């Protein structure tokens, strides 16, 4: 029973910590990479996100940059564009940003897996794409380099020998690469290694051209060529497929927008708690603009927090339900095995209330012992995984498709510990009521005859 309670408590606390961690990470990632704490728009822009609905950045920039509690500020242009490469096309939301300002509000510059974030002076303007967008635009090459070939030879000699004809060849699509592999490898090796090989040989085509077509404020369609200078990857595949970053000036010039005007100002606050008051102050100050907090911009993210708590409770209830059955079973066995003992105790003069109390006390002590073991185990477990993260990368694709990181850092509050401990202890006590009641009903005379 001690083990059952300890495992139950550990399971409950860990589940809660994982869900808490997931939710916190999702909110933090959203704020850091996607929406920031506060956004300011021309109210008309929010209706249809039309490219001409801008507002004067200079009118707010100075006041905002010196405001208390605001640590980052970025003025953005935002256009909806059709992106084309020589092999594919895809719809993108293109943000025109000033790299240094964007760094102060967004974590995207730190999420680059290749290239740089709009730095450097190039003749052709730069664009930074998400990994998923780059894949959709087929900006991927498959090349088996010498170093990969050497590693494969060291891993399995036959494989190293068979792939030699492919070394140095650059193949443009995954299906062509797979066909080339199939032609060179014996079936068993192909089946075993082809997917891993394709992943490790894939490399993004930096400097590849991307043509963006978008509407100008005059209502005309305009196309401009950009070159891919960076690829980023977040834990949200949908975001990576949608958002692209270009230099503010390049986009302003290409879209014919006054460079003093912006579609959006993103603000990062010192902490989450100050967001409400800052947003209120800004709303009062800039009454002709629309000031929105992160939970208003993306209400589904705010919902995650409440939903996470609710899900945590549901999991805990399920765990407690299973635990209750375990305890009932154990205590019932305990009572049945000690039927004679209880019969003797009642015969010599222990009254029913004392027998009942004795069983209940045993249950409480066993539950508490299990509880302490479970809590200690949970604390150690969560401390370790809060540092290293809990790796679910086996299911990374699924997690990232819904915007969650596949590495979770469990997070739990003292209140969660207290709640789970109370629930587990209460379950232990409640689950013992029935076995204890059963003991109450025994007839000492009959119980003494039980072999």
């Amino acid at each position: 029973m001690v083990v059952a309670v300890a495992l139950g408590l550990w399971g409950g606390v860990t589940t809660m910590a994982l869900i808490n961690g997931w939710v916190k990470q999702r909110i933090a990632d959203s704020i850091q990479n996607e929406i920031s704490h506060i956004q300011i728009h021309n109210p008309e822009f929010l209706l249809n996100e039309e490219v001409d609905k801008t507002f004067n950045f200079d009118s707010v920039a100075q006041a905002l940059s010196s405001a208390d509690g605001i640590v980052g500020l970025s003025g953005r242009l935002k256009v909806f564009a059709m992106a084309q490469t020589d092999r594919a096309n895809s719809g993108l939301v293109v943000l025109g940003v000033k790299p240094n300002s964007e760094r102060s509000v967004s974590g995207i510059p730190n999420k680059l897996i290749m290239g740089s974030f709009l730095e450097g002076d190039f003749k052709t303007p730069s664009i930074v794409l998400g990994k998923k967008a780059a894949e959709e635009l087929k900006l991927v090459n498959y090349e088996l380099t010498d170093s990969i070939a050497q590693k494969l030879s060291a891993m399995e000699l036959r494989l190293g020998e068979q792939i030699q004809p492919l070394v140095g060849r650059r193949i443009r699509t995954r299906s062509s690469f797979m066909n080339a592999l199939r032609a060179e490898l014996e079936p068993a090796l192909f089946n075993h290694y082809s997917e891993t090989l394709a992943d490790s040989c894939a490399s993004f085509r930096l400097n590849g051209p991307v043509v963006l077509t978008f509407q100008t404020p005059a209502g005309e369609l305009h196309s401009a060529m950009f070159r891919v200078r960076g690829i980023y990857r977040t834990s949200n595949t949908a975001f990576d497929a949608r958002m692209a970053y270009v230099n503010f000036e390049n986009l302003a010039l290409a879209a014919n927008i006054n460079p003093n005007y912006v579609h959006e100002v993103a603000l990062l606050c010192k902490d989450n708690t100050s967001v409400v008051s800052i947003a209120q102050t800004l709303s009062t100050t800039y009454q002709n603009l629309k000031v929105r907090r992160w939970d208003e911009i993306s209400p589904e993210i705010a919902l995650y927090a409440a939903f996470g708590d609710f899900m945590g409770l549901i999991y805990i209830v399920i765990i407690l339900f299973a635990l209750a059955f375990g305890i009932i079973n154990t205590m019932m066995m305990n009572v049945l095995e000690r039927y004679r003992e209880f019969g003797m105790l009642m015969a010599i003069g222990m009254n029913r209330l004392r027998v009942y109390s004795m069983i209940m006390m045993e249950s409480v002590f066993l539950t508490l012992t299990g509880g302490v073991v479970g809590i200690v185990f949970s604390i150690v477990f969560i401390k370790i995984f809060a540092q290293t993260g809990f790796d679910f990368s086996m299911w990374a694709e699924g997690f990232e498709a819904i915007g969650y990181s596949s590495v979770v850092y469990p997070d739990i509050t003292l209140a969660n510990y207290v709640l789970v401990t109370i629930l587990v202890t209460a379950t232990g006590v409640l689950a013992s009521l029935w076995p204890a009641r059963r003991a109450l009903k025994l007839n000492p005379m009959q119980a003494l005859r039980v072999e």
Partner: protein
Amino acid sequence: MAIIEVVNVDKIYNDSEVKVTALSNINLTIEKGEFTAIVGPSGSGKTTLLNLLGGLDSPTNGKIRVGDVWLNELKGSKLIDFRLRNIGFVFQSYNLIPVLTAGENVELIMQLQGVSARVRKQVAADMLVKVGLADRFASRPAKLSGGQQQRVAVARALASKPQFILADEPTANLDGKSAENLLQIMEHLNRNEGVTFIFSTHDQRVMNRARRVILLEDGRIKSDTLQ
């Protein structure tokens, strides 16, 4: 006045549609300091009579007095409390609590009576001395032989300072030497300290040592002899 008086007691079990008369028209008295054996073949009603005397069961007809209390007037917790303070039990299978030491098993009944821990410890030690187990205070039942366990059970019964001790086949699970040893101790307690013992038994050695033998047959007292 006799410490036990049984008046016109019948015990009939209604097992579904079959009526079984376990005891019929039992009348007897037991005086303080007796060393009495209730004997008879299996099914003669020995254990039933012992259960009635111990207040573990109630007669269908008739009544039983223990000391100056008629047991039929006590119900529920009052009856349990009466058993706790007036009747000692020794069972055939010892029925010690395995996780408690010999001393703690003896203390248990005093704990139920609300005796202070200090007094309990002292009395338990004294009782174990009386049954020849002074050095086994801290031993758990698993470390004791059957005879030693039954002596602990006697010490436990004695510790409650009962008016009498009921022993249901106390030697049935013991080898000859252990049974003899146990009987010597109980006889010693009876002769020197006036402890009243009432046994149910098949054991000829117990019958030989008993000073009064009540023979039951088919639920009736066939004979009641002093030896």
